[in-house]
């Protein structure tokens, strides 16, 4: 209980810290949204008028207080440039990014866990080496390059075997679910293969540790075959560790996802953020960065709590810090 409370308090403190850092970082920027809106060939008076109109002339503390107070109410502000509420902006983009992440994760689990198990089960040296090398290479491919190779292989229009659309999201969005999913396949495969490779390595090493501890042998002594022991007992025991890894992978995936969104021209959170930074749409960028950071802090929180729930040994320990020691 003490652990949970402390973890939650920390979560809140971290949110506050992130909000200050994000706000401060964005104010050091050269350039402002008013001059972007006014564009070339506008007199300085016009830029000044726009700045006044958007309240960009107020003291920073007032601007921060205004923004933070909005955050507390769940109001992320209005994008100065697009005139839409940042919440709806993020919602629209998230409706592409999250399915992409989830699909990518599914692909990763479908590839990583079975291959990890297979690698543990493999008897011949050749097979072991093959799995090992595959895992190494898969994890070492730059997301950008992996995506490009898939485009060259499978993209409609350019690929050797033209299967999937490689550019953009259908105009109707999720109103055309078939097309929408279809357009996410190549991006999800790119993300999934790369993450899958590292997941495979983790699965293998987790299973290896468990096998080393003699639990697999014990299960086999109870009459299971090796395969049964590994998939049944081993995987179950490795679960807490894998959940942790997947949770952290989730956070790291966003790097790949940003690149992939840009490459496949998907108007998701990643590509949107890059555009907004370019346009100096401060309100939008700071809220987006804050939301993302908050999201990952939340994932971290959930993983920690889940890890504890899944591993009964941790729950009995008085303090989490005692366990590892």
């Amino acid at each position, binding site marked *: 209980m003490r652990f949970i409370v402390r973890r939650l308090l920390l979560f809140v403190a971290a949110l506050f810290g992130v909000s200050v850092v994000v706000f401060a970082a964005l104010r050091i920027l050269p*350039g402002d949204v008013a001059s972007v809106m006014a564009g070339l060939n506008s007199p300085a008076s016009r830029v000044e008028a726009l700045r006044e109109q958007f309240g960009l002339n107020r003291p920073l503390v007032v601007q921060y207080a205004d923004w933070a107070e909005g955050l507390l109410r769940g109001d992320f502000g209005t994008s100065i440039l*697009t005139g839409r509420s940042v919440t709806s902006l993020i919602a629209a983009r998230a409706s592409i990014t999250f399915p992409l992440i989830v699909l990518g994760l599914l692909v990763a689990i479908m590839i990583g866990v079975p291959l990890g198990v297979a690698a543990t089960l493999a008897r011949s040296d050749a097979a072991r080496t093959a799995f090992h090398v595959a895992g190494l290479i898969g994890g070492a491919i730059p997301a950008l390059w992996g995506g490009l190779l898939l485009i060259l292989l499978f993209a409609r229009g350019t690929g050797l075997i033209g299967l999937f659309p490689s550019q953009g999201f259908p105009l109707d969005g999720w109103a055309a679910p078939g097309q929408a999913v279809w357009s996410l396949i190549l991006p999800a495969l790119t993300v999934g293969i790369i993450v899958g490779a590292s997941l495979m390595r983790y699965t293998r090493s987790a299973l290896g540790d468990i096998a080393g501890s003699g639990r697999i042998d014990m299960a086999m002594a109870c009459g299971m075959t090796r*395969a049964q022991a590994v998939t049944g007992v081993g995987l179950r025991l490795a679960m807490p560790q894998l959940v942790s890894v997947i949770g952290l992978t989730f956070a790291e995936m966003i790097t790949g996802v940003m690149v992939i969104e840009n490459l496949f021209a998907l108007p998701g959170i990643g590509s949107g953020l890059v555009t907004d930074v370019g346009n100096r749409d401060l309100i939008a960028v700071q809220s987006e960065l804050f939301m993302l950071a908050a999201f990952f802090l939340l994932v971290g929180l959930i993983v920690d709590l889940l890890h504890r729930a899944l591993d009964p040994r941790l729950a009995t320990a008085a303090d989490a810090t005692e366990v590892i020691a």
Partner: protein
Amino acid sequence: MSDNNGAHGQSGATTDSSLEGRAKTQKNGPKWWLGAVIGVIVAIAIIVGVNLAKPNAGAQGGNPSTVETGGNAADIVTIGLKLAPTNLDIRNTSGSALDQVLIGNVYEGLVARDGNNQVVPSIAKSWEESKDGLTYTFHLNDNMTFSNGDALTAEDVAWSINQLIKNQYHDADSLSMVKSVAADDDKNTVTITLKTANSNLLWTLTGRPGLVFDKDATYDAKTEAIGSGPYTVAKFVANDSITLKANPRYWGSHKAKTATVVVKYLADDNAAVNALKSGDVQVLAPITENLAEPFTSDSEHYTVKAGDDTDKYVMAFNSKGKNTSDKRVRQAIRYAINHEELIASRGGADKALGGPIPSLDPGYEDLTGLYPHDEAKAKALMQEAGYSTDKPLKLTLTYANIYGTELGDQLRSQLAKIGIDLKVNVVEFSTWLQDVYTNKDYDISLVDHNESHDFYQWADPTYYYNYDNKEVQRLYAQAIAATSDDQRDELLAKAAKIVSEDAPADWLFNYRVTTAWANGVSGFPVNLNQTLLPLYNVTYTK
């Protein structure tokens, strides 16, 4: 994961759940594997199946959203453009992306311009100019309506222009010479009175300052648009797409030939090319010349054409800069740049430009002979200024990342030969605006000035060029006050030549926009289509 679920599904059946779990996994072990394998096989089967089905779909037209009936024109044409507007507020937000998609399609101006940059009738069917050039009377068309059903009257026209001036909307300063705008509803005329004669007035009114808005309508201008043009905005997704639907209440002769035009913004060049190849879009404007090769070589299915434009890639030398105030340095740079090579590397569609006025603007004259590529001369000038390859002059080139890194690398390479160590600083456009445009804190800047009739930049010493030449200012003032076009053109040409000789900038080239479309598309404008893109004539027949 899945074995866990399997175990859970049955766990109520026996009391000894751990035994049960083991029993389950014993049976599930191999099956779990089988499941994965079957899953993969099914996935492959689906993929192959869909792939086999594809050719049929292709035979029917490739694009599922294109409804076709026996060779007739399609209901939907999808067009790929590059720069997306961030919102629809054409009165407040800068950027040619808005002019491109809205003017002539959704909003109409008092007057319009054609593909050769000449003024033609629009809301006004004709006009007269008084002898002294101070009074313009516009005769409007009859029975005009906005897309919401409101009548478009002389009142709306006068209100729109007056609002622009009063609220200082975008481009308002280009109407600073206007004294009054008055409507006469009975005669259906609008009269504009000027403080001083201005030979640019009509042309100015073809752009944003002349747009006519509905006085009585209230709507969120950032996400909606109500105008009198042949199209209405049915859907707008910021940075992504705009769906235009034919305006059923359209009053004039530019009636939309295609019911729905979808404009898709493809910032990524590859995305754009792929979209055209796969049939997701039927037209692509612009297409990077270097990427057009697959289409130019496939003339059976595609047409590729470059159009004239007023885009000037202006590499400005800060005339008051520490080193660039030295005319010899500026001239040396102009001699050092190999324009022909720059153009060749970009695919060869662009045109050399020797001065500030492009061929579609009044006062154009071929000035490319003033500073031909001459490395020896450039070196000599640098020597005179005290620099050589051994003792290079350090300069910084600042430009926005939207123009790509290649130009900077090439310029650095070309200038290194004459003893200039060019540091290339590629920044966000907003940073460029702040540092170069607003603060004038730069050595060399590069930007695509795509505006037309923009010679005033050289006559304004406060503009970021820091260029101050009294003779040029005098000539420009005369040109603006001129009452005949010939007189104006002559004065402008004279001023342009002086500017070019002074070398306050180098005009790398006149960017010509290359457009590619699938055969069957017709009526798509090729000239000036990055600022002016009337779509009413566009059709697609396969």
